[in-house]
């Protein structure tokens, strides 16, 4: 998948680019408005990550540009502002998602993959890992032919793992994915242990292997 990252902060750009590359994306980047605009008009991308506070222009204008040229790219807005107005405006203009800094890379990954699925890139609606099948349209999970009943949170958790295969995902990242801003309500990460325990059990009971590995102190890895 071809991704364009439009981000002016150099360290951040470097880190995200590196991460995306490791996840198997083809990545290009631009650090200010005019360069970004050129790239958009010259090339096609599958997913565009736009930081709306880039210099020399407003990221929202880039979204407009994309829509006007009938681009099929999926657009994710990256913003430091957490401004409701920007969010509404951006989504109204045609962006597909909105993520606020600071975010976990695992979260960004999950959003990109989710966007790709929604746009039916590369047939992402039917995921399968070995014996596990997921239909993201119907939210059905099957191990071989046995359906697995997952709660909403368990399903989200599972999808999160699937999107971040073979990566260590911190407890914090999981908490933020599942509960958003309410994540800081939790005194400890008991909730997460509980959800993971349930998810694991349900999958194993249905005949799957144990893919969820506990990484001491930090979190988990969905090892395939």
């Amino acid at each position, binding site marked *: 998948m071809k991704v364009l990252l439009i981000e002016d902060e150099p360290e*951040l750009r470097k880190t995200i680019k590196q991460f995306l590359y490791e996840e198997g994306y083809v990545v290009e980047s631009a650090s200010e408005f005019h360069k970004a605009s050129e790239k958009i008009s010259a090339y096609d991308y599958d997913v565009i990550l736009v930081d709306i506070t880039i210099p020399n222009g407003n990221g929202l204008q880039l979204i407009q540009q994309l829509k006007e040229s009938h681009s099929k790219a999926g657009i994710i807005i990256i913003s430091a502002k957490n401004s409701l107005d920007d969010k509404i405006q951006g989504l109204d203009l045609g962006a597909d998602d909105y993520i606020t800094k*600071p975010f976990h890379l695992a979260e960004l990954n999950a959003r990109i993959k989710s966007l790709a699925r929604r746009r039916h890139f590369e047939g992402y609606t039917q995921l399968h890992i070995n014996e596990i099948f997921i239909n993201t349209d119907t939210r059905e999970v099957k191990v071989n032919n046995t359906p697995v009943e997952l709660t909403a949170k368990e399903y989200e958790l599972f999808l999160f793992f699937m999107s971040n295969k073979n990566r260590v995902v911190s407890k*914090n990242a999981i908490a933020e994915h599942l509960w958003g801003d309410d994540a800081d309500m*939790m005194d400890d990460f008991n909730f997460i242990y509980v959800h993971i325990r349930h998810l694991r059990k349900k999958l194993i009971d249905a005949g799957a292997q144990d893919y969820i590995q506990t990484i001491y102190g930090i979190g988990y890895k969905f090892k395939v």
Partner: protein
Amino acid sequence: MKLIYKTLLYYTLLLLPLIALATLTSYYILKNELQENTDEWLMRKKLNYQKILSTKNIQNKIFLDIDSLSYVTKVSLPAKPNYKDTLIYNAYEQEYSPYRVLTDYLTQNNQYFQIVIFQPLIEQEEILESVLLNTGILLMALFLTFIAITQIVSKKLWKGFYDTLQILHQYSIQKEQTVQPQKTGIQEFDILNEAISQMTKKIHSDYTLLKEFTENAAHELQTPVAILKNKLDILIQSPNLTENELTILSDMEYTLQKLITLNKALLLIAKIENHQFTEKETVCINTILDKLLSAYQPFIEEKKIHLSKSFEEVLYTHMHPHLADILCSNLITNAIRHNTPKNGTIHISVKNHTLTISNTGINKPLPEKNLFVRFKKQTTTTTHSTGLGLAIIKSICNIYSFNVTYTFCNNMHQFQIQFDLLKN
């Protein structure tokens, strides 16, 4: 003591003795004048008598007047004329009357005669007393008039000053007013007002800069923090990390998350106080509460908290919807977070346009003094609490003038917010 009264006091203390002095002085001057007049008159009378008597032959004492006082009599030796005051008993009025007496001498046919002339002073004295009284009364009346005029004029003159005082009294840096008092027409007050106006302008701009700085600083912090977060994401991927290293990384992630939460809260407060949330809508507090309670259901259940609600009315209020959300959410999350580890209680009630939320928790009241002040944490919990939750609640209540109070009763910590009656 008020300026006017002090002024009048000084005037009184200084003027009254002066008035007394003036009155006495004029009394004595007048008395002297009268006395001189009387003496001159007595002398003229003596000369007159002298003329008349020169044609007569005086043998013995003869009375010169029907009052049987003034007389002429033979003496052996003359002396210098002398004037003196004396009192004569008046049998008719049964009292003593004052007289001025001239005792002088004349010669006739080589005989010496003493002539004593009496002049009644009673009328003079009465006139004198009358004048004295009138002068006194007049001066006192002038004095009192002066006091009265001073009071009236003073009120008028100082009005500008009192208006300025009133403005200052109501001045609040939070309300961000600049003061522009009206021209008073009195130079000193106009100068004062101008100085105050300049001062408040400067305060306002300094304060605005300070708040913008706070908001900008919090905003800028987000980028390096985002970088750290992502670097950690990458670092934890390293294979062969020892348990010790993993623990450190976990602690770093936890601490970083606290930093992020803290910064977000600070940014929110800065934005609230910078009036970034000016739009208002009619919001239904009950709906918001229900929505939040449902979202927090898992956390409430996990801590086995017993939740009871008593919504006796539907509370509508006029505020920014996002702030309404934050307000209610902070109250509820506090009630959950600072509750007893298990089996606590939360009670939420809506009644009389007031939202009350109480929870069990620590068994003693929270110190009220710094309760809503930023960063003053009341407990030593290890939660993600930033100490800003209540400060945020207070900030929001401040802009809408909602009254927020805390009480500790029946072993429950109770927070109450009195919303403004919805203005239609």
